[in-house]
């Protein structure tokens, strides 16, 4: 489970700020699910509607993301 979402693209639905978890919407299992998210760069702030790449899983429904504005992966 944890590994299957790593590498997927998601979209921030709640701001990710230092010290607070944000929320990302990730396509998984032919649907979309919400995951709590933390920035890979701890000090970064990722604003809403930013496309992110899931770079890691923190266990459970929390993932680590990195902004990927320049990345466009084929579906």
């Amino acid at each position: 489970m944890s590994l299957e979402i790593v590498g997927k693209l998601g979209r921030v639905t709640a701001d990710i700020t230092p010290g607070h978890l944000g929320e990302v919407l990730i396509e998984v299992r032919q649907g979309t699910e919400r995951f709590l998210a933390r920035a890979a760069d701890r000090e970064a702030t990722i604003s809403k509607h930013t496309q992110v790449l899931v770079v890691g899983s923190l266990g459970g429904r929390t993932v680590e993301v990195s902004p990927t504005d320049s990345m466009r992966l084929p579906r």
Partner: protein
Amino acid sequence: MTPEILIPITAVVVVVVLFLVVFRLSWRVAEPDEALIISGLRASGRPDGSGESMGFGIVTGRGTLILPGVTKVRTLSLEAHESEIIVPCVSQQKIRVDLRGIVVYKIGDDYRSIANAARRFLDRPAAELETKVQNVLVGHLRAIAGSITVEEMISDQDKFTQQVRDRCTQEMESFGLVIDSFQIQSITSPSAYIENLAVPHQAQVEQNARIARANADREAVAQEQTAAAQIAESMRNTEIKKAGFQADIDRATKESEQQGPLAEATSRQAVVEQETHVAELQAQQKEQQLQVDVRKPADAEAYRQITLAAAARDVRIRQAEAEAQEVRLHAEAAAAQTRVQAEAQAAAVRVQAEAQADATRMNGRAEGDAIRARGLADGDAIKAQAVAEAAGIELRAAALNTNQEAVIAQQIAQNLPEIVRAAASPFEHIGNFTVLDGAAGVTGAMAEIIQQAGTLAGMARKAFVPAMLGSGNGSGHADVKPADLDEAAEAPLKPVARAAADTKSGNGAEPAKATDGKEPAKVTRERPATR
């Protein structure tokens, strides 16, 4: 058909049917919104191997074969649940507010969540799940509300949601639940705090509304008044125009009503004018007739009478002029004749007197004769003079109008001796007349007196000579001596000379004495004749 054949066939069919029935009973299919929780024999041996730790298997989205009796299959619903949460809480400003929210949650789709949920809620009624969720959320919401203000609750939904996510996610994950949505439906305050929050803005809005309404009302009223004024004005204009038109109508009506009488009067006026003209012509005719009948004859008669009167007057004037001319010619002729005769006589007398004077001077003795002859001549002359004066008086009366001054002078001449005497009277009572200036002084005084008398005598002579000539001519005496005339003229002077001589007494001159004896007699004789 033999029975031996039928039995195996039937057995096979029965076996097949039985097999199908068993298979049907052993085969379970998971619906899309549910998960099959399989526990029992070989439950953890599933190929997906998700739930191996706890010894049960989880099947989602497909079928699986179970072994009835040794394997237990239960379903866990993955559908969403909705729960209403009412939280009485206190905000950061210690203000009591009531939050009412809706939370939508479901069991997570991943095996970890399903496992967590299966261990907690499997075979439990949905109400228990809801109660658990509510209790957890109420506690967290109260804590969240205490950390933010009412204003933030109202306006900053994201912040609230963020807080909810931060605090509740871990507990929900342990329940295997995922919060799909959390919405605060209403925030109410028993202390009317929220209502009061709105008051300033509300008052502002109300004020603006009232201002706007007042302005609108004012403008509306102004517009209404303007419109009313315009309406009134237009009504007034209409009334004025109506009145004007009505006046025009009335005037036209009156004029049309007056047309009849007016035409009648006009025609009557024309008739009267014509009649007046006729009367004037008649009057002129009558005047002309009168001119012809009365005035012209009268003028002719007057002219005739005037002409006749003028002719008669001219005749009378000519007659009078002729008479006057005749008289004047007669008088001139007589005067000329008299003058010639008198001149001739005067020349003759002068020659005779000279001759007599020479004879007297040479012969003193002959004086008496001469005097006597001269006295006789004087008597005749006086007689002739009287006759002549009588005629002269008549002539003088006739010529009185023409030469009145001469008459007056004559009167003066006649009274001259008395006048001179009166003038010389101061000298009569003088006994001794001493003249300091000598003989020349006496002579001056005498000459002064005599000069005065002489002046009067000159005037008298001027008036007297024509009278004498007229009388002489009228009486026809041509033998009057010029000397007598001179004597008569100088007679009034004699008494004066004598009086002067008397005053000299001792110095008496000879010529004065010589005349002294005769002259008084002459004068006394002369006076009555003159008077």
